[in-house]
């Protein structure tokens, strides 16, 4: 590969990364704001866990978008089938409800509890309504402290409806930003294939090399480290830069380092 080709591919790769960055920059502050609202509202509601579920697909399924509490990491990304459980009902009916004595049976949130190891005992679920449409569900689960938990009160139900009103606006913005994110991904992978054909060819070539598996593993490692926090990201960058500087003179081209 000539120096000019490499420069060309490098520029286009930068474009790809910048586009993905812009898309992420649109959604991440929104989920961070929802997390922050969940923390504030859960404290006010004296609730141990809180989560926001959004519509997923056209069949009425729900997806945990954000959560706070002990099992937040395990909940985010879980899907609930249409119409199932309290959240499913609240989503399809638009009616808020509070349920207590859930612990009497296994059937209630068995699937979610099985995956998280958590025990759901009392729930308050309220719909997220934007422009007359139900776009998700806000849930508060259990109380701070130990079971048996006090049921959620009618006053807390009204308070939850106010939080839901604010969160619904942010969820709507998140959905719009996600559309842009999906669109940019599609543009990069299909629609603008002529412009990015160099990169695609380069990736194809890369997959045929014996180094490919190693490189994928390295990429996954970097990806995992980069999601552990800012300190870990900085440390990772420093180490990688040191390696790059050390080996710079021994490599043929800047691009083959990838």
């Amino acid at each position, binding site marked *: 590969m000539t120096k000019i080709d490499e420069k060309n591919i490098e520029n286009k790769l930068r474009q790809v990364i910048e586009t993905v960055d812009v898309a992420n920059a649109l959604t991440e502050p929104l989920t961070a704001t929802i997390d922050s609202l969940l923390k504030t509202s859960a404290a006010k509601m004296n609730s141990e866990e809180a989560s926001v579920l959004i519509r997923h697909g*056209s*069949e*009425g399924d729900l997806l945990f978008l954000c959560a706070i509490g002990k099992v937040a990491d395990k909940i985010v990304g879980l899907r609930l*089938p*249409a*119409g*199932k*459980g*309290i959240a*499913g*009902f609240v*989503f*399809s*009916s*638009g*009616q*808020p*409800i*509070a*349920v*207590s*004595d*859930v612990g*009497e*049976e296994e*059937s209630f949130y068995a699937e979610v509890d099985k995956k998280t190891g958590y025990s759901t005992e009392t729930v308050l679920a*309220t719909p997220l*309504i934007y422009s*007359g*449409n*139900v776009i998700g569900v806000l849930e508060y689960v259990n109380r701070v402290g130990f079971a048996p938990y006090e*049921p*959620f*009160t*009618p006053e807390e*139900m*009204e308070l939850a*409806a106010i939080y*839901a*009103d604010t969160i619904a606006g942010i969820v709507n913005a998140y959905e719009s930003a996600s559309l842009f994110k999906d669109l940019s991904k599609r543009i990069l992978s299909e629609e603008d294939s002529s412009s990015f054909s160099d990169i695609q060819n380069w990736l194809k070539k890369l997959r045929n090399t014996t180094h490919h598996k190693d490189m994928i593993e390295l990429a996954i490692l970097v990806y995992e480290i980069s999601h552990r926090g800012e300190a870990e990201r900085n440390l990772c960058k420093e180490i990688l830069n040191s390696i790059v500087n050390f080996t710079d003179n021994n490599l043929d081209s800047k691009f083959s380092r990838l």
Partner: protein
Amino acid sequence: MTQLRQFSINSDWKSGAGKGVRIAIIDSGVDKNHQDLEGKIDKSYEAKRDNNKIIFEETDRGDTAGHGTACAGIISRIAPKAKLSSIRVLGSGGLGDGHAFLAGLEFAVNEKFNVINLSLGTTKPQFAPPLHDLLDRAYQSGCIVVAAANNFPQPSFPSVFSSSLISVSKNSETDYFNFGFKFGEIIELTAPGVNVKTTWLNNGHRKLTGNSFACPHIVGIIALLLEKYPKMTPFEVKTALYSIAISNQKQKN
């Protein structure tokens, strides 16, 4: 031409059990195998899409959410001899939108149920005019529709309509005969809806809070009234309820 008539009620209606009264529960379905509901569910229908139409067929599928079963438990506790039917418009299969809800209500009106429990609503304004027309039709044909209010700043249809249906919000009372009345407010009747213990899926029970559970209390009360006074019109039922509620409040004070 129907003659205008005077009517009055005695408190003996309270000893009834809702015998002969047909009630439709438009909701997530009802688990008719629940031990507390055995023999009390007359028919179960389910909404299905047939090309561009929504049709209703008899079904054995019960309830996946629990909400309809909870409403049925409340009604049958007050009116154990009423004939309950489930019209499922919520649940899997992409249903649960305003169209299925509207179609379910139309089906219930056409089937001439005496009372319809509507612990549901929609905030979509495009459904307001057809719902209004349908409720007028129900009112004129003698079908009493009871709807739950919602807790939001946005209006929920049909509960905000005041003429042709009865709307209910929750109170913290435990005695279902002790329902209340708030004249001048959009939602005029209040009934128990806080920590109400009722039937749930898998032969279980739950304590539930929400306007959804105030609505079936009033449906149960209407079943008792209709057993004693089967010729009462929707207007008379509404008037009787207001009158009883005011008398409840006077006794309280």
